[in-house]
């Protein structure tokens, strides 16, 4: 095909991305022209939410149309992609809503911020779809560069700027490794398509390539020891952006990771399985234990998100359709909980510069029971507590099940998971305790009234969490459809033997 016209198949395959991009461009132009309006940011935020919803619809349409895999296998059109897209859209919509709330108070953001978020989303959506390392890289950079900027959009805040610089430098650094890995894999396989790479015997170049590729990817999912940037960036970036990072960026990163693992570098599984095993164990333990020491809630949540990466890595390691389904469900529940938590945090922190500590939560229940309850539900969801924690429990459950059901049951890893979860109870409960068990400090100011959009976010996340906490079946079914690859033929010589 030598003409530049996009063939229909490609059209169908990219329907969501195209919808998103066009919407974004429109938004950008309107922002450029209508710059003098009362609050362009809030308007464009609302508009952006609209675009996200439209994209969601198109995603669903594309999904129902069935497989749109195209460009001789450079883009996937499978359930996994669309399911992940939906989770991403959920996260983005939520973060946008929080952004709107925050903007209403701080006026810190410019009209282009939603545009950047949408562009980042675009990159993420390519990540979920990419079956070609080239697209993977472009998508990743698209997302990353946008997020580097987003971390620093609060231009009145030095912390914000510092966060953005740190994130940028380390991100670029790690993507250097990633790129080198891609180059070597390309060299070894002669092609950047996962399918080809997945069918290439693992030679030395191949292995080095895989190693470097992994480095780049686990940096994005913030696995120990590539996690150090997370607390700083989460802490420095404005809450809505932090929520965006915690929810969507992580989701996208895991989408990428899972697809590459399952479709791409399976030949080297003997090599990367033990490595990832250790990464998972380390991540769970370090994340949870260090979180215990945090008083600053955003940092605490940062470490908890690190720990969650550990749990998710366990699912990735179990390497089966059920496992990918578990990842999808987990990220869905995790996104909900994150949005809810940050919604509350946004209200409580009152958009002030100083970090919100656990002490600032003291007695919240006595003044604003609703907020306290929402926050509690979200924390318990992180904790994976049944019923009260809602879907969080089933998320953990599916991971456990996948881990035990994998060809070589990850017994030890499961125990590590369980024990580190107990540790995590330590800090979640401390936060809850300070909300409920303590009296409100006289000095503590009264949280502002909850704006409609935040309220909506809280409501949606809590309701969904609780409903899926009792009847996870619908979500679980979707996730089950959204599985990836087949059970590996090669049995892993598991590190779990120890």
């Amino acid at each position: 095909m030598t003409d530049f016209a996009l063939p229909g198949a490609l059209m169908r395959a990219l329907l969501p991305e195209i919808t998103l991009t066009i919407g974004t461009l429109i938004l950008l132009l309107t922002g450029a022209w209508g710059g003098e309006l009362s609050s362009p940011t809030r308007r464009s935020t609302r508009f952006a939410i609209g675009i996200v919803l439209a994209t969601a619809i198109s995603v669903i349409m594309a999904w129902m149309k069935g497989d749109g895999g195209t460009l001789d296998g450079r883009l996937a059109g499978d359930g996994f992609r669309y399911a992940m897209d939906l989770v991403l859209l959920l996260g983005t919509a939520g973060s946008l809503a929080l952004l709107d709330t925050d903007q209403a108070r701080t006026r810190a953001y410019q009209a282009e911020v939603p545009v950047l978020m949408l562009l980042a989303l675009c990159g993420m959506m390519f990540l979920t779809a990419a079956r070609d390392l080239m697209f993977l890289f472009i998508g990743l950079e698209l997302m990353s560069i946008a997020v580097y900027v987003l971390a620093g959009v609060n231009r009145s805040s030095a912390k914000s700027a510092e966060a953005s610089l740190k994130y940028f430098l380390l991100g670029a650094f790690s993507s250097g490794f990633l790129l080198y890995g891609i180059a070597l894999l390309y060299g070894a396989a002669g092609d950047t398509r996962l399918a080809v790479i997945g069918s290439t015997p693992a030679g030395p170049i191949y292995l080095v390539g895989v190693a470097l590729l992994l480095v780049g990817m686990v940096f994005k999912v913030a696995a120990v020891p590539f996690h150090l940037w997370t607390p700083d960036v989460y802490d420095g970036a404005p809450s809505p952006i932090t929520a965006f990072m915690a929810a969507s960026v992580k989701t996208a990163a895991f989408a990428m990771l899972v697809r590459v693992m399952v479709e791409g570098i399976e030949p080297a599984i003997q090599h990367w399985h033990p490595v990832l095993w250790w990464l998972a164990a380390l991540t769970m333990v370090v994340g949870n234990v260090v979180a215990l020491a945090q008083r600053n809630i955003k940092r605490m949540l940062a470490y908890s998100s690190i720990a969650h990466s550990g749990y998710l890595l366990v699912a990735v390691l179990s390497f089966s359709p059920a496992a990918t389904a578990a990842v999808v469900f987990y990220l869905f529940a995790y996104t909900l909980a994150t949005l809810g938590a940050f919604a509350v945090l946004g209200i409580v922190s009152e958009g002030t510069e100083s970090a919100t500590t656990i002490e600032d939560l003291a007695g919240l229940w006595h003044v604003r029971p609703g907020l306290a309850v929402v926050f509690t539900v979200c924390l318990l969801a992180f904790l994976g507590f049944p019923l009260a924690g809602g879907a969080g429990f089933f998320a953990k459950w599916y991971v456990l099940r996948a881990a035990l059901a994998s060809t070589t049951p990850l017994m030890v890893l499961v125990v590590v998971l369980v024990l580190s979860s107990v540790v995590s109870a330590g800090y979640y409960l401390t936060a809850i305790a300070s909300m409920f068990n303590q009296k409100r400090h006289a000095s503590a100011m009264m949280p502002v009234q909850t704006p409609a959009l935040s309220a909506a976010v809280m409501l949606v996340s809590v309701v969904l969490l609780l409903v899926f906490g009792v009847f996870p079946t619908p979500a679980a079914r979707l996730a089950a459809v959204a599985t990836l690859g087949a059970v590996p033929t090669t049995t892993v010589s598991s590190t779990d033997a120890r």
Partner: protein
Amino acid sequence: MAALQTAAAHPLDGSLAEWVWLLPLLPLLGALLNGALALWPRLSGVTAEHASLEARETETGRRLAGTRWLTSIVGPGVMLAAFALTVAIFFTMRGTADLVTPFVRTYASWMPVGDLRIDWGVQLDQLSVLMSLVITGVGFLIHVFSVGYMASDGGYARYFAYLNLFVAAMLVLVLGSSYPVMFVGWEGVGLASYLLIGFWFSEKANADAGKKAFIVNRIGDFGFLVAMFLLFSTTGSLDFVGAHSALAMASPAVFTAAALFLFLGCAGKSAQLPLYIWLPDAMAGPTPVSALIHAATMVTGGVYLVARASPVFAGAPEVSLFVALIGAISALFAATIALRQWDIKKVLAYSTISQLGYMFVAVGTGAYAAGVFHLVTHAFFKALLFLGAGAVIHAMHAAYHHAHQHDQDAQDLRNMGGLRRYLPITSATMWLATLAIAGVPPLAGFFSKDEILASVFARAQGSPLASATLLGVPGSVLLYLIYAVGIITALLTAVYMTRLMLLAFTGANRTGDHASAGLHEAPSVMTIPMIALAVLTVVGGWLNLPELLPLGPTHLLSDWLDPVTGDASRVLGGTAHLDHGTELMLVGTAVAIALIGIGIAYARFRGSVATKENAVPETGIAALLGDAYRVDAGLDRTLVQPLGVFASRVLWQGIDQRIDRAFVAGGALISRVAGQAHDALGAGDVGRYAWVIVLGVLAMLAAFTLR
């Protein structure tokens, strides 16, 4: 088992004996009624309207006073009814021919679990009916006495509630048709005694005494329980009939173990070594209580149990010997202590222990009838002695009250003396009882004690028991030894009892001129029961006359009890019999000993002694005896205190609390250290972060390439 028993035709079917279930219920009813009376002022809302304690108590007192008469009727009334019923049943049984098997009635299933069947049932036989007679009879008299003794006490209704409760429990104990049901009574009497000892609970000492009694008894109950488990796992039944009939196939070890554990229970309940320590303290209770519970009835429960479980003990001769030995030692031990007690009730308490020792000597040597005989007579004269003591104390209290000398000890013999003048009836009746316990013919005590000693001697001469061995020592030796101890104890008994009487009633009065004006004889409601008991003390011996002195029908009691304990007693004692010559010799010795004892006492304690406050502290052996060999202090130092320390210092503060702290502190520490270490890793410097990343990369590359 019980079901079978009732199914089979029994001579007593349909007779008056069918009413036996009413026996425990009557006192229980009384207990409930009196209990309600005691509480009704509160239930009728005194608390609500009276804030201050004083107001509340005066009001309570006022309301109670109104119901006092009712209590006075209900309390003794139910006892009288029970006594009457018992007598009626007794005579029905007398009238019934060939009464060999016990009459068992089960009314409800209690604990039916798998093959374990425990029913609420009563067993009526010669032994249980005899015990019931004593309990209800003596019990009734003591209730009547109490009406006078407690007349001015605030807790009048409460007192009678407890007392009735005790009788009910005691009747359950003796009438129960299975070990568990018996155990209900067993612990029930323990509870009642606990409540009554601590009746005047405002005195910490009294409450402590009650607690001590209960706990020491619990140690015995432990044995009882284990014995039950053993019997059940061996025989698959816990009814007396069923279990004993199934014992046949059991191995000797079972008999030994079961008998030993059972005896542990008996030792606790009947205050034998080493578990006697609670009884002297138990004197803290009102004196009629001491008379009823700690002399006449409850403490004899152990003796009853041995008799009841005679098939078990019969299977373990060495244990029987052991029982007899313990009995003998207790008898001597307690008697020596009694020599040097100044508290009138303490003397009687130790004497009780000593007399119980005699009973165990009897049942231990398989002379069950003799044991029970002594049990009955002892119930008479010891109850009498306690009531007498009660009368004395009552008078002394009145006197000191009259003289406003409340700090004076109303129970100390040194403060008495010459009371004969003021309390003639009391002193007369008590003298009778004293002679009886000393073993002077023809009083009850003489016959029973003589029979015990005689049977021991007879078995020593030749019997299965004599041929058995205990820890290698041949039985005959032990039996002779026991006999000797018995004789010595008899001597001591005579001495300390006479001493008591002399100090209390003869010589010059030491109460103090001022106070002595208030001394007076007890009211008739108290004296009449004493007189009644005195009569029993005199005629009690006729229950079981030896052939030697055919003053009437002989061996009534032995023949009566034969269906129950006969076999067992023959198994242990064989048909050992003494020729008249020997027996005459023994009787002579006994009487002589008694008289000698009395003589010694006269010689020694005729003169007056110093009153309590200006008494010189005793020294040497006397002090040792006065302090009861300082056993309590020793136990406290060696057992009680260390245990408490261990529990609190080691287990609680040492381990539990440490675990606790470790949990909290450890968690905090880990998180802090980890947090700091981790922060140090990056310390906010991107360069450092890069370092960590690169090191991670190296590790991963190594993992991939170094293969």
